[in-house]
């Protein structure tokens, strides 16, 4: 296994990460004199003299370009209000739907309580704007949706999607991970979907272990053996 080049360590607010003029503070860090100080609890990471702190807890912070999963909360004249599990409300305007919409019958397209996969196109202090004008976005009609801590999403996706691709390959399911921690699983059989759910829970529980992808591979083999024995 390749050793992680970047040294990671747990930091607490107010702790000095490094001293020296040639470092730059990134997310979750601040410069005070010639010291780089943490402003939030998490893992400190250095790359190219840039120090940033990866958050391990806390609420989801929406960013432009994030793919998220949300629930239709309300219908207005100009679009839909979507609950995306963060303090700010999100809005999906009429223009961002890739279909002709009859203004009197918005609920034919999306009704209250419907779940959608959407992309964030803008975060302003007035709210969050969404779009479903792209491939893979839109209404969710079948499958199951589970929720995990949004800070564990990067681990579920893995480096360049390694983890999620492994899960997809092993289970033969279609999995969409929303950055806000909601995950949509769609497979041919319910058992497959439940297996994915179990695998994702396994990953999010063990999210601090290194070499997790290999461990998940082993875990899938074990699970498959179990189901084989059961069917025999």
């Amino acid at each position: 296994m390749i050793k992680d080049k970047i040294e990671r360590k747990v930091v607490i607010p107010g702790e000095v990460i490094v001293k020296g003029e040639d470092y730059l503070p990134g997310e979750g860090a601040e410069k005070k004199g010639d010291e780089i100080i943490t402003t939030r609890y998490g893992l400190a990471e250095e790359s190219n003299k840039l120090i940033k702190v990866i958050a391990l807890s806390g609420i989801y912070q929406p960013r432009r370009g994030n793919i998220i999963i949300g629930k239709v909360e309300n219908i207005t004249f100009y679009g839909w209000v979507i609950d995306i599990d963060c303090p700010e409300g999100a809005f999906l305007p009429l223009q961002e739907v890739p279909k002709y919409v009859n203004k009197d019958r918005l609920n034919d397209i999306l009704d209250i309580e419907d779940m959608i996969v959407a992309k964030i196109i803008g975060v302003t202090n007035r709210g969050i704007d969404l779009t479903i004008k792209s491939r893979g976005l839109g209404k969710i009609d079948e499958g199951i949706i589970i929720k995990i801590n949004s800070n564990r999403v990067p681990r579920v996706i893995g480096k360049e999607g390694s983890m999620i691709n492994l899960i997809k390959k092993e289970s033969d399911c279609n999995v969409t991970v929303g950055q806000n921690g909601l995950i949509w699983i769609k497979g041919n059989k319910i058992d497959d979907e439940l297996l994915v759910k179990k695998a994702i829970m396994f990953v999010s529980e063990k999210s601090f272990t290194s070499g997790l992808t290999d461990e998940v591979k082993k875990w899938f083999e074990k699970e498959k053996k179990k189901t084989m024995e059961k069917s025999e």
Partner: protein
Amino acid sequence: MSTAKIFKRPDGRKPDEIRAMEAKVGVIPNANGSAMFSFGDTIAIAAVYGPRKMHPQHQQNPEKGTLRCNYSMLSFSVSERIKPGPNRRSTEISKITEWALEPVLMIKKYPNMVVDVHINILQANASTRCAGINAAALALAHAGIPMRDLVSSISIGKLDKQLVVDLNKEEEDWEEGEGSTDIPITMTPNGEITHIQLDGRITSEELKEVIGLAEKMTKEVYEVQKKALKDSIKI
């Protein structure tokens, strides 16, 4: 410090000895952040919810986020049952806790939002507000809320003429000589005071000494808090 050797505290501690401290984070799975902190028999738990939208809407502040603390002693926390729910004392301590924590919190980035901190005292043997503030600081850090620093709190007391740290109930009710003085102090590890209260009588020279002692003792509390946060993550 010759008197220090002669002076005997009711529970046999040294004047500058804190009761056994214990801290733990992540004790409440439902909350965004949580922590437990104890000084001997005094146990406090804190849960942080948010940042989330402030309701009612007229209380929203578009300039910066709001911190809302809620301190409460559970009815079984003391030997004589106390009536549950807010009372004069708990309302005051809630406000004091807000003031003690606000200087280190960076909630400017969360306009119109509120961070709720619920502090519950499971078991009380004096210094509950200090334990509550310590637990709240840990819980806020655990909830991933940006902070300039942690804060640590300790109560310094004066029994007759002797300065002692971390009073317990028996010492709080001390009546010999000049009686008991209780001074809860909250500080950052750099020695900046965010909260100080005084109950009793003290001269200004003695108060300076108290602050010097508090600076030393809050460092001990800080180490316990630091360890709790660091140990909760295994890489």
